[in-house]
């Protein structure tokens, strides 16, 4: 199938066709450049290094979610539970720092060092991701329904753990050796905030995994034609499971970053994050049908949404217009997606 595509691509689009094709495929990047030019000309503060740093830090939240979401959407699935997993992971981290792990059977309370707390929160997120994967593969529940269910379960679990309250002042105590949680959200390495580094690492790892490994090729193969992939020996269930686990892991990282930035964990954190993540992935050119797109596009999509959000705040635009404009951008992106499909279909049939 792929060789067939290659041949047509190489022969058919000549001249402006090729440029059109390129612009379509990189539309998130094009939109990003246009937005940056608009905001930079309207607000003098926009291009200051301080603002750009904060902007990228804000983008990091959605971009990390979008990287995980890309793996799920590439297989033709969807993950609605990412926001709830972020909330749950934050609560797990907050609870472990403030109250420790209470083991009533042994009558002890265990406190962990911060890196272990983060690891356990990430494990909790991957665990919910694995549950998503099992529901989708072993029990053949439609991804939309399975992750809708875990969305509620994870949110409820977060509320249960904290009894609806916030875990405040996540500073840890020196005598318990669990201080330093703030570094993850507000620390910096080489003048760049830690969340930006995390986005870079997650993005690079995601891009490598998707485009340079057998696992990545299997993800695309499943999204392209699941039956064909299965017949050619791909263990569809296992690959999909891993995809959902990656998404759960990324969501957990986001939850921990937010808890660290606010120095408090709130069980309602992450509501509607799933919609932003899906929007970023779609803006970035990944098809909701699966099999087409990639991690780089999703990160560009997250930047478009983030630049739009922060730029409009900088200009002092009202909340109502911010929502309308965000919606319009998403719809336009999907319209472009449809045009691209028709465009390449015409080429192939001619």
């Amino acid at each position, binding site marked *: 199938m792929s060789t067939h595509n290659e041949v047509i691509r190489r022969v058919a689009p000549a001249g402006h066709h090729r440029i059109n094709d390129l612009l379509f495929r990189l539309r998130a990047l094009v939109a990003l450049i246009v937005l940056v030019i608009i905001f930079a000309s309207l*607000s003098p*503060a926009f291009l*200051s290094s*301080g*603002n750009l740093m*904060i*902007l990228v*830090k*804000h983008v990091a939240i959605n971009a990390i979610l979008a990287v995980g979401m890309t793996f799920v959407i590439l297989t033709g699935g969807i993950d609605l539970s990412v926001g709830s997993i972020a909330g749950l992971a934050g609560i797990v981290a907050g609870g472990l720092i403030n109250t420790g792990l209470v083991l009533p059977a042994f009558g002890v309370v265990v406190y962990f060092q911060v890196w272990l707390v983060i690891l356990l929160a990430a494990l909790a997120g991957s665990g919910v991701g694995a549950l998503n994967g099992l529901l989708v593969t072993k029990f053949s529940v439609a991804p939309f329904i399975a992750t809708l269910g875990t969305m509620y379960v994870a949110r409820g679990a977060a*509320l249960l753990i904290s009894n*609806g*309250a*916030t875990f*405040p*002042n996540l500073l840890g105590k020196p005598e318990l050796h669990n201080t330093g949680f703030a570094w993850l*959200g*507000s620390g910096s390495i080489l003048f760049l905030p830690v969340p930006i580094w995390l986005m870079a690492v997650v993005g690079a790892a995601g891009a490598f995994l998707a485009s340079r490994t057998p696992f990545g090729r299997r993800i695309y193969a499943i999204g392209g034609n699941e039956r064909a992939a299965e017949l050619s020996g791909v263990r569809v269930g296992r690959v999909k499971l891993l995809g959902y686990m990656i998404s759960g892991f990324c969501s957990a990282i986001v939850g921990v970053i*937010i808890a660290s*930035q*606010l*120095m*408090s964990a*709130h*069980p*309602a*954190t992450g509501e509607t994050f799933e919609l932003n993540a899906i929007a970023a992935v779609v803006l970035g050119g990944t098809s909701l049908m699966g099999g087409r797109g990639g991690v780089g596009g999703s990160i560009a999509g997250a930047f478009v949404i983030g630049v739009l*959000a*922060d730029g409009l*705040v*900088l200009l*002092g635009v*009202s*909340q*109502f217009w911010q929502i309308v404009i965000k919606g319009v951008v998403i719809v336009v992106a999907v319209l472009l997606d449809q045009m691209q499909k028709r465009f390449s279909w015409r080429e192939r049939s001619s």
Partner: protein
Amino acid sequence: MARKVLLVFSLGVLALTGCRQSGSGRKSIAIITPSHDNPFFKSEADAAAARARALGYEASVNTHNDDAHKQDELVDVAIANGAAAIILDNAGADASVAAVAKAKGANIPVFLIDREINANGIAAAQIVSNNYQGALLGAQEFARLMGEKGTFVELLGRESDTNAQVRTSGFHEVLDKYPGLRLVGQQSANWSQTEAFQKMETLLQAHPDIKGVIAGNDTMALGAAAALKAAGRPEVIVVGFDGSPDVLASIRAGSIKATVLQPAARIATMAVDQAHALLTKGSSGAAEKQSIDCELVTASNVDQFGVFTRK
């Protein structure tokens, strides 16, 4: 298949009759509020439930998550279960009128707390904290802390929410009279801490010299304070609204300067007391519309306050 259906059906009937039996004997009060992930609503529900149990009622506590449709269903359930009274923090001034009227039609008195509805004579009582008076208090303290001059930004609540509008108009009633105070940015953070954190960071970029932040509620004040701390600007004056336990702690620590406490727990207790009076004596002994004043909390008096009430 048929056997399975029968099994499920009989289990359902069993569960329903079980509920009914446990409900009989004592009268019950249904307590319906927005989601408990906001400590404000949790504490009002807890306070109402505690008082109801102390007075010998069963208390059934449910949340409508600001969804008028879900609220309607919960009222239906309360009617079906034969609740003696309903304590309701409603899901919208207009959208809730029908649900309250339905309960009244079933002879169940509804005591509204925290939020009013746009209709008189159908609720047994509407007990709310005076948001406008509270906003004036908060704004006066904010102006005093600012030394009556300097630039500030305002974080608004969800703009479709009545309380968000009432609070901002109260703030401006006071602040607009000071020529030295200049509003340089006004953004909605939808009552959310995460959103307030990000909006505050961006606002600081556009207006690096601001001296104060006035927020429509406490969660947004906490988000703004966290952003200011991260930006190395802890001296910026932050004032919130609600009197949540987290903000009381921040006032003690100095990162937030003041808030306005809504006596939510006291209002909830009052509502249950009035319901009890109506059920036992035939009269609640109070007018339908009751407005309870908010109180200013600052570093000097913070120790006098507990969870949404004066100690």
